[in-house]
C-alpha cells in the first residue's frame, strides 16, 4: 500500500479545509463521548457519580472500581482467551480453504453451496440454540470449552468463507493456471501462490472473528457454564443484576476490562484492517 491517500482536493489552507477539519474533529468528539464517560465514571466514587454529572472530572481519582471489577470478572479473562484463540484460528483457516476452493476450483454445485452459506450469515443465532445444544450433547461435548469452540467455528464459517472467497475471486486466473501447467497440486498452489498474497485478508478475517467471538454473549452463556464462562457472561452477571445497589464505577470498569482486548486490536491493527478492506475484501 504505497498510496494511502488518494485525495482529490488540494491541500491548501482555505476555508473549506478548515471546515473539513472542524467537521472531522466534531465527529470524533461525538464518537468519543461514550468512551470518555465510561472512563471518567470508572474512576469516580459512588457519591461522586450520584452528585456530579456525566462529564465532570472525578473529584478524587478512585481506583476501587477497577480493583473490584478485576476481582469479579478478571478470573474469566483467560477463559475468553482460551475460547477465542483456537476458534479464531480454526475458523480463519477453514474459511481460507473454502474461499480458495470456491474461487479457484469451482465445481458443479459449489456456487449453490456459496449461496447457501451466504444466507447462513443472516441466521439469527437464537434459532439454533436448542438443536445445537442437542447435537453437542450427542457429541459428548456438552459443557466443555471444546464444544463452545466448535460452535464458534461453525457459525463463524459463513463470514470467513465470504471474506476469502471475495478476495480470491479478484486474483487473476492466469497465475493459478500457469502453476497448474507446471504440475503444482492443490495445496502447493494454495501455499505458494495464494497464501503469500493473503496477508491483508487474513488480517481482516482475524480481526473480524476476534471481535465477534470475544464479544459473544449468547453462545457463551448457553454452552459454557460455571468456571469455564467467558468474560462477557461474567460482565453480564455484574451489570445485569437486578437487585442490590448499583455500583456504576465497577460496572464501567468491568465493561472496559472486557472490551480492552478488542479495543487494542482495533487501535493497533486497525490500519491492517483498512488495508485488507482496500485490497479487495469489499469488492462485493
Amino acid at each position, binding site marked *: 500500500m504505497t498510496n494511502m491517500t488518494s485525495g482529490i482536493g488540494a491541500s491548501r489552507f482555505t476555508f473549506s479545509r478548515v471546515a473539513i477539519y472542524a467537521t472531522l474533529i466534531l465527529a470524533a468528539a461525538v464518537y468519543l463521548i461514550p468512551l470518555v464517560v465510561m472512563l471518567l465514571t470508572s474512576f469516580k466514587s459512588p457519591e461522586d457519580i450520584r452528585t456530579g454529572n*456525566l462529564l465532570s472530572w472525578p473529584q478524587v481519582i478512585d481506583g476501587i472500581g477497577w480493583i473490584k471489577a478485576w476481582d469479579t470478572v478478571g478470573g474469566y479473562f483467560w477463559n475468553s482467551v482460551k475460547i477465542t484463540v483456537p476458534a479464531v484460528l480454526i475458523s480463519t483457516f*477453514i474459511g481460507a480453504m473454502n474461499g480458495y476452493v470456491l474461487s479457484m476450483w469451482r465445481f458443479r454445485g459449489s456456487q449453490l453451496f456459496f449461496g447457501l452459506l451466504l444466507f447462513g450469515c443472516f441466521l439469527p443465532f437464537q434459532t439454533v440454540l436448542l438443536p445445537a445444544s442437542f447435537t453437542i450433547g450427542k457429541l459428548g461435548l456438552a459443557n466443555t470449552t471444546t464444544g463452545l469452540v466448535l460452535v464458534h467455528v461453525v457459525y463463524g464459517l459463513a463470514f470467513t468463507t465470504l471474506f476469502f472467497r471475495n478476495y480470491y475471486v479478484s486474483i487473476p486466473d492466469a497465475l493459478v493456471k500457469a502453476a497448474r501447467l507446471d504440475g503444482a497440486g492443490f495445496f502447493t498452489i494454495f501455499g505458494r501462490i495464494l497464501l503469500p498474497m493473503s496477508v491483508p485478508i487474513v488480517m481482516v478475517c482475524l480481526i473480524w472473528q476476534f471481535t465477534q467471538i470475544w464479544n459473544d454473549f449468547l453462545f457463551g452463556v448457553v454452552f459454557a457454564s460455571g468456571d469455564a464462562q467467558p468474560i462477557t457472561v461474567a460482565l453480564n452477571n455484574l451489570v445485569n443484576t437486578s437487585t442490590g445497589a448499583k455500583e456504576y464505577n465497577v460496572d464501567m470498569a468491568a465493561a472496559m476490562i472486557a472490551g480492552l482486548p478488542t479495543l487494542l486490536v482495533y487501535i493497533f491493527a486497525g490500519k491492517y484492517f483498512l488495508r485488507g478492506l482496500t485490497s479487495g475484501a469489499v469488492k462485493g
Partner: protein
Amino acid sequence: MSSVAVFSKASPFDALQRWLPKLVLAPSMLIVLVGFYGYIFWTFLLSFTNSSFMPSYKWVGLQQYARLMDNDRWWVASKNLAVFGGMFIVISLVIGVFLAILLDQRIRKEGFIRTIYLYPMALSMIVTGTAWKWLLNPGLGLDKMLRDWGWEGFRFDWLLDQDRVVYCLVIAAVWQASGFVMAMFLAGLRGVDQSIIRAAQVDGASLPTIYLRIVLPSLRPVFFSAFMILAHIAIKSFDLVSAMTAGGPGYSSDLPAMFMYSFTFSRGQMGIGSASAIMMLGAILAILVPYLYSELRNKRHD
C-alpha cells in the same frame, strides 16, 4: 466454469487432485447442511406443532402462525424492525460515506481520526447498549448534564417515550456501525482510478459533482457489501435491545429477534417462537435472493 476438466489424465494422483477441492469443502458442506439448514428445518417443523415449554411434535397445522398474526406485539416488533433497520442502514451509510470522503482529502493524523471512528465496532453490543442507556436516561445522562450546564428547558426523554424509543436504538446502533461503513468506503475510495477524476477536474467539474456523479457510482459494490453487513446487524440486533431497553416501555421497542427469543425461551411458547423465526427467515430470504442472484450471475472470475 470447471477448468479442472482440462487435466483428464487418469493417474491416481490426478484423480486425487480432482477430488481434493470437494474433499476440502465437504466438512463445511456437512456443517452448513446440518448446522444451518437442518436446524432451520427443525424450527420449521416446530412452528407447526403445539410446542410450548419444550419441543413437542403434536401437529397443529397453521395455528401458531394464526396466533402470531393475531399478536399485537409481533406487529409492533416487525414495524420497529422496518423503522429501525431502514433508518439505521440509511443514516449509517450517509454518515459513513460523508466521513470517508472528508477523510480522503489528505488529512493529517488520518490514522488517528480513523481509529476513533472505528473503535465502537470493537465493543460488544452489551457494552454499547449499557453505555447509551445511561447516556440517554433523562435523570442521569446528557439530559441532566445540559440542564446542569444551564439549559433549563432542555428535555430529551426519547428513551421513555413509546413512540420515540426506537430512535434511541438507531442512535446507539449508528454510533457503533457508521465507523465501519466509513472504513469500507475509505477503502473503496482508495481503489478509485485517479486518472478518471483528473480528467473530470480538467473538464472543470466541481469536487461535489465529481464525487456524486463519478466516484460514488463506481463504488456500487461497496454499497452492496455495506448494505449486507448493516442489514445483517439490524436483523440480529438482539443484545443491543436487551441491554438498552429490554423492549420497553411496554413492548414498544421490541424487535423480532427479541420477540422470538422471549417467546421461545422465557415464555414457554416455543411454537409461536418458531413461527416468528420462520417469518424472519422468510423476510431475510426476500431481501437476500435478489442480491445472491446478481452476485452469482455476474461474478464469473474471468
